[in-house]
């Protein structure tokens, strides 16, 4: 890998004599350990000074290293903090790690460099108790403010049964409720303006237009939004903690429920990462099946977006038509996988079953049927004058802002940047398909919808290619770690039988290592960073979801607009709360 040597060498040249330690990872992403006190310098260099800068803070998360056995070639650490940077210019990832010891769990906040780090740092504080000096509002973000302990530490219990029985006496209830009260002073918000009193409006967590349990507190002057504070965490289900408890195989259904509209699209980055760790090469047929199912789910998710988007600006009918199409789609998915929204159907090294007889007919009928419907929706929704009035020029951000805040997916392409993981980092065989990356120009609500609508047609194109060129072959890789392993030879020799038995009962033992794989999911880039410690379970499962980054940006794009605009913005972002809170 030339590039790997490239960026590492550049850093070593610039910071000569510093103890920069390189770590080998299964995913070939350059990974460097930094001393804590040089963190800000290195990051500033990478963002502001270097040629082909790393402008996007792609992810930031902690690792509890205390119980990890396989740490060959890594410096002493009780905890580690990972900064995952992304350069669109270079098409290059870079992972930086900082080692922390238990008795001094603190390091400088990087919010001055990347405002988008604010939520990520809160999350690391919440989950690991790592303190970020200079962070303006370091607080619990996913757990309630009254939570005790830091959930992703290895000594924090994962099950309620490990805790004393739950009780809610009235004083505790009052304390919990009081903790939900919004305090404008904490956020530096004035209660009064020059000649007006501001109204603080609590929008959510149960509001018809926030698409789940999302709370956003508005500082209003009349109906104009002066400022707002999004609050998340109501949908937190500790998916990352579950990743450390479930076996590699049995975690797959959990991934389905992260972006619950994306179905098997969620399985894809997870199984790809596990396969990278295990060194499994999957057959062509598997790749093609995976692509087809993922694209079917992309259409399903985009149809829900399309309908709710128009509904949130007050148009009541389109969502019903689109749900009918989605039902047809689910018919196909059900025929193939046996389930509708959450099939959990991809497997380590393959998929659960082969395609059923007659799948071609169902898929062909659908891809012949949908374009005409899309034409109708185009007239009904996208060409509607009132809808344009409500969404054009509303909630605008530039490409630079989008990159700065970690926006990925259609939200990024709506600003005009031609970037799609399927094209620029092809995975699962996307390089073999002929499709276009849809972009728009203005980065407003209308364009975000425009891009998604166009993507539906591109997805149809990809599915048609899958249909016409579906390779023959097995639906599972012939590899000992494929789960469940191929069974044909088990009755013939004892070794295969033992392998099969262990693989099925305990689950596979994945070789130690680290890998992260990102895919172009329905809502943006979804990636799984997996650390294996040579066990039947993952040592650390980090889920980087697109919606988390997108929601953090809401205040920036909604200041000075009206409540109705905020609703349009929320609708155009296309998030689901499970994807934010995990």
């Amino acid at each position, binding site marked *: 890998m030339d590039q790997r040597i490239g960026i590492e060498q550049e850093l070593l040249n610039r910071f000569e004599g510093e103890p920069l330690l390189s770590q080998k990872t299964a995913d070939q992403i350059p990974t460097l350990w930094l001393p804590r006190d040089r963190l800000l310098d290195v990051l500033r260099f990478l963002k502001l000074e270097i040629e082909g800068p790393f402008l996007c803070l792609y992810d930031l998360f902690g690792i509890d290293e205390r119980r990890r056995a396989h740490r060959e070639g890594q410096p002493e650490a009780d905890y580690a903090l990972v900064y995952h940077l992304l350069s669109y210019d270079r098409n290059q990832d870079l992972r930086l790690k900082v080692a922390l010891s238990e008795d001094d769990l603190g390091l400088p906040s990087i919010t001055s460099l990347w405002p988008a780090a604010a939520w990520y740092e809160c999350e690391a504080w919440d989950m690991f108790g790592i303190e970020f000096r200079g962070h303006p509002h370091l607080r619990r973000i996913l757990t309630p403010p009254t939570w005790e302990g830091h959930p992703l530490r290895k000594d924090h219990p994962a099950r309620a049964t490990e805790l004393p029985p739950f009780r809610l006496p009235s004083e505790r209830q009052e304390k919990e409720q009081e903790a939900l009260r919004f305090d404008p002073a904490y956020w530096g918000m004035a209660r009064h303006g020059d000649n007006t009193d501001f*109204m603080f*409006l*609590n929008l959510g967590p149960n*509001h*018809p*237009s926030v698409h789940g349990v999302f709370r956003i507190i508005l500082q209003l002057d*009349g*109906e104009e939004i002066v400022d707002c504070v999004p609050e998340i965490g109501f949908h937190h289900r500790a998916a990352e903690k579950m990743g450390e408890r479930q076996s590699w195989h049995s975690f797959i259904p959990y991934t389905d429920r992260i972006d619950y509209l994306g179905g098997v699209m969620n399985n894809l980055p997870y199984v790809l990462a596990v396969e990278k760790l295990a060194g499994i090469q999957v057959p062509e047929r598997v790749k093609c099946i995976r692509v087809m199912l993922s694209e079917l789910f992309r259409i399903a998710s985009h149809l829900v977006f399309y309908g709710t988007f*128009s*509904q*949130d*600006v*007050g*148009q*009541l*009918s389109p969502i*019903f*038509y689109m749900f*009918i199409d989605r039902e047809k789609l689910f018919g196909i998915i059900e025929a193939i996988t046996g389930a509708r929204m959450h099939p959990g159907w991809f497997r380590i090294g393959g998929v659960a079953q082969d395609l059923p007889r007659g799948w071609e007919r169902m898929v062909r009928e659908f891809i012949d049927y949908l374009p005409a419907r899309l034409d109708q929706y185009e007239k009904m929704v996208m060409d*509607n004058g*009132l*809808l344009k*009035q*409500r969404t054009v020029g509303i909630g605008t951000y530039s490409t630079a802002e989008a990159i700065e805040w970690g926006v990925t997916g259609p939200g990024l392409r709506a600003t005009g940047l031609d970037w799609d993981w399927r094209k620029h980092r092809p995975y699962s065989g996307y390089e073999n398909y002929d499709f276009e990356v849809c972009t728009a120009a203005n980065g407003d609500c209308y364009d975000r919808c425009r891009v998604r609508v166009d993507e539906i047609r591109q997805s149809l194109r990809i599915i048609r290619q899958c249909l016409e060129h579906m390779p023959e072959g097995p639906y599972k890789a012939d590899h000992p770690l494929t789960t469940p392993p191929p069974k044909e030879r088990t009755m013939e020799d004892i070794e295969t039988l033992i392998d099969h038995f262990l693989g099925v009962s305990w689950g596979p033992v994945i070789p130690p290592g680290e890998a992260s794989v990102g895919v172009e999911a329905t809502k943006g880039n979804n990636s799984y960073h997996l650390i294996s410690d040579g066990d039947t379970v993952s040592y650390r499962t980090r889920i980087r979801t697109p919606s988390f980054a997108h929601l953090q940006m809401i205040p920036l794009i909604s200041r000075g607009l*009206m*409540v*109705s*605009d905020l*609703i349009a913005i929320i609708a155009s972002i296309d998030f689901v709360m499970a994807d934010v809170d995990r």
Partner: protein
Amino acid sequence: MADVFRVLAQIGTTITVLLVLAALLIWAERRLLGLWQDRLGPNRVGPFGILQSVADMIKIFFKEDWVPPFAEKPVFIFAPCVVVITMLMALAVVPFTPTLAIVDLNVGLLFFLAMSALAAYSTILAGWSSNNKYSLLGGMRSAAQMISYDVFMGLSLMGVVMLAGSFNLREIVLAQQGLWYIVPQFLGFLVFLVAGLAESHRLPFDLPEAEHEIIAGFHTEYSGMKFGLFFVGEYLGVLLIAAITVILFLGGWQGPWLPPFVWFVLKTALLVAFIILLRAALPRPRFDQLMSIGWKLMLPLALLNLMITGAVALAGGL
């Protein structure tokens, strides 16, 4: 004495019929929306689900009559009554046939305008007395919307008054014997229909309730029969606007072959269906956009219509 009884009986019958019609309208709207949105709508209670509204009514009557502790109690209770009372009062001057009307008022049209303007108090008071921020926003939107749309609602009708030379609704219908006023007063018809939709806050003018933004707005805190009254009031409003439009622009009960009452019902039903279709089809403009449509487009249109009609009337010596 017999006369009084006759009038009372007529009032009683009309009110009952109107309330039943409003309930039926709720069902009709749901079925029509179902038809246009590729779904079924209520179809279980009675033939074609026609008794759904009755079932809902029974349910809503048996709900606890609850006033939130933080609300301004007397006003909170009074507010939903206002809309139903004013709507029923306004319907009193509507001549369904040449002979069937509760009162044959000289200033019928003015009375209608006054009553429909009064109905605005219902939403404003409800929004204020609920003591809820969303309701307050709804109430504010409602106040602003009513004020701006009332202005040109009145203006849009003056052309009709000029042509007919009367404020009496019955005489206005009779004056349309040769030609329905929708032809000479097409601008007025458009402006009035828009203003009427805004008055009865139906989509696309349902900003005071806008469930996607301010969660039912002025009636967020209402439940049980008090909520039911708002509901009935809204549908009475739709009936009223449709009926008045038919009278002013579509020749009222006039038409060949069929009896007058049937003509009236037919025309009104068609207009009501059109209003429901609008709800199925259109998104909702933003608050300030609504205001600018009102002041920058509708008001000038109404004035233009008035001036042209006046000029023609002067020149033609009507």
